[in-house]
């Protein structure tokens, strides 16, 4: 039964829920309930050999996916045959508002690149729930670019189920929105998962970006590398919640998580919660979290050589953020966007 305008807010996550305490969707959309029930049309392009269909799907497991299920009847299902290999990425461009669900099914040994662009043209509410099913030996390379208008509320939830020998390479660059959460949830059901999950957010004004992740390991031999870099200015808020859940069956896990932030104003805000739950005894798990400012000595050194302060700050910030994208096959687009942002906001 469709939700009424009156009770729609009750189904949205809010600050009294532990996982959403720093990203209060309910409060942010209060008074704008009319825009919460639409279905979103996504612009999807993909190369030959990939099948895209619109199909009814089982209900989503995620909080915002369940919310989306109230308003949409079908998901876009993208099927990638076993052994498929292509350099042509699937490109998803989301510029409008509303709800959408996408389900990817990668067959055994398939290799897929997905490029997601979240760039609203107006102030909208957008909620996209994505499911990835990675069969044995499947490889997913996922790149997310996010740059919404200052009034947009954006939630993207990716649930990735990975079977034996699967691999994930994910890079995210976000310039935030009024409220945004780019969430990645990985569950391993087979051994030797390899996942590199990296990202950066650069926020100004009153923008908000939440990079939440949960890696749930239930099989041995996983190798996880995660790093998120943040730069905040003005009254912006950056949120990082990273969780490694290493179950008893996930012996020989090697997992590392980092979140490093440079705060460039007295009024910006960082909320960070690294979380390790380890039940296996033969594992290496680590997390690190740092928050600081640009190195004053390095800034003076650069200025002493003639580089103006704003340019020196931009250069140091750029190299700090660039580390998140060091192992990208091609990071030119991201680095250009970062340097442009720094140039425009210095």
């Amino acid at each position: 039964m469709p939700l009424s305008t009156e009770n729609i807010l009750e189904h949205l996550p809010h600050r009294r829920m532990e996982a959403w305490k720093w990203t209060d969707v309910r409060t942010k959309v209060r008074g704008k309930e009319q825009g919460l029930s639409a279905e979103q049309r996504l612009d999807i392009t993909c190369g030959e050999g990939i099948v895209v269909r619109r199909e009814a799907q089982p209900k989503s497991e995620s909080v915002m996916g369940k919310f989306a299920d109230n308003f949409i009847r079908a998901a876009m299902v993208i099927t990638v045959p076993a052994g498929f290999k292509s350099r042509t990425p699937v490109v998803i461009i989301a510029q409008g508002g509303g709800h959408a669900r996408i389900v990817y099914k990668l067959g055994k040994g398939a290799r897929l690149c997905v490029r997601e662009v979240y760039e609203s043209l107006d102030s909208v509410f957008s909620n996209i729930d994505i499911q990835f099913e990675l069969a044995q030996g499947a490889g997913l390379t996922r790149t997310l670019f996010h740059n919404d208008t200052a009034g947009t509320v954006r939630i993207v939830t990716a649930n990735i189920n990975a079977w034996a020998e699967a691999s994930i390479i994910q890079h995210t660059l976000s310039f935030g929105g009024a409220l945004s959460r780019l969430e990645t949830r990985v569950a391993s059901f087979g051994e030797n998962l390899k996942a590199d999950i990296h990202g950066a957010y650069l926020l100004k004004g009153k923008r908000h970006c939440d990079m939440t992740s949960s890696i749930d390991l239930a099989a041995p031999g996983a190798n996880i590398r995660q790093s998120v870099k943040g730069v905040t200015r003005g009254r912006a808020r950056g949120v990082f919640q990273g969780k490694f859940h290493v179950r008893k069956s996930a012996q020989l896990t090697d997992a590392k998580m980092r979140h490093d932030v440079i705060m460039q104003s007295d009024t910006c805000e960082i909320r960070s919660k690294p979380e390790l739950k380890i039940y296996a005894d033969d594992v290496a798990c680590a997390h690190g979290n740092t928050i600081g400012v640009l190195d004053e000595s390095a800034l003076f050194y650069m200025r002493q050589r003639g580089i103006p302060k704003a340019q020196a700050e931009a250069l140091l910030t750029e190299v700090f953020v660039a580390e998140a994208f060091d192992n990208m096959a091609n990071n030119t687009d991201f680095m250009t966007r970062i340097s442009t942002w720094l140039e425009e906001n210095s």
Partner: protein
Amino acid sequence: MIKINNLTATVNGGQQTILNGLSLEVPAGEVHVIMGPNGAGKSTLSYVLTGKDGYDVTGGCVDYFGQDLLALKPEERAAAGVFLSFQYPLEIPGVPTMTFLRTALNAQLKARGEEPMAAPAFLKKAREIAKTLKMKPDMLKRPLNVGFSGGEKKRMEIFQMMMLEPKFIIMDETDSGLDVDALRIVADGVNVLRRPDHCMLVITHYQRLLDYIVPDRVHVLAAGKIVASGDANFAKKLEKEGYDIYAA
């Protein structure tokens, strides 16, 4: 020329006076040396002249080729030709040496209203200077000073100095950490920049550097001001007798 008149400066928000009425004149074309006991204010003088935050000038003035040096920002002083060879050169991870230096050079040229140096000309000049200083080619490809030995960092300072061709050079203990061969190479690089319209201030603890860079004047800095001066031979006397009589 640079003329420092009755300069006083504090650190720690004014709680500690480091320079205490320092006066010094370095005419164009001359090399002057500052020696003195630890804590006398030698490095503070270099930071005050280059405009580092945290060093507050509370009195006096500095005339730099007719300009009020203290009114300029650090980058403006650099563009006007002031160069500090740091006692402890910074490592800047992620910034390739050549990118850093080209950015610096072109920023200075822009500030002076000159055309930027094109990449081929810049590379040619860099290669020639690196060869003169006997620097390993891979040093120019690495992030600035990252993984360099102490001596390599000092050599990199001289490399930058020769690339930027400043008018007023301050060398803050550039000789420390250098072996004899490196010292000679560095000194040769410095001597190339001795020109009639340039001047230098060399801060050092040791006379040995002055065997290669022969100064016009040697000054003793103690308790924040110049307390004695002499010619090139004065350094040998200081090394032999120490600073006790000046620090008293």
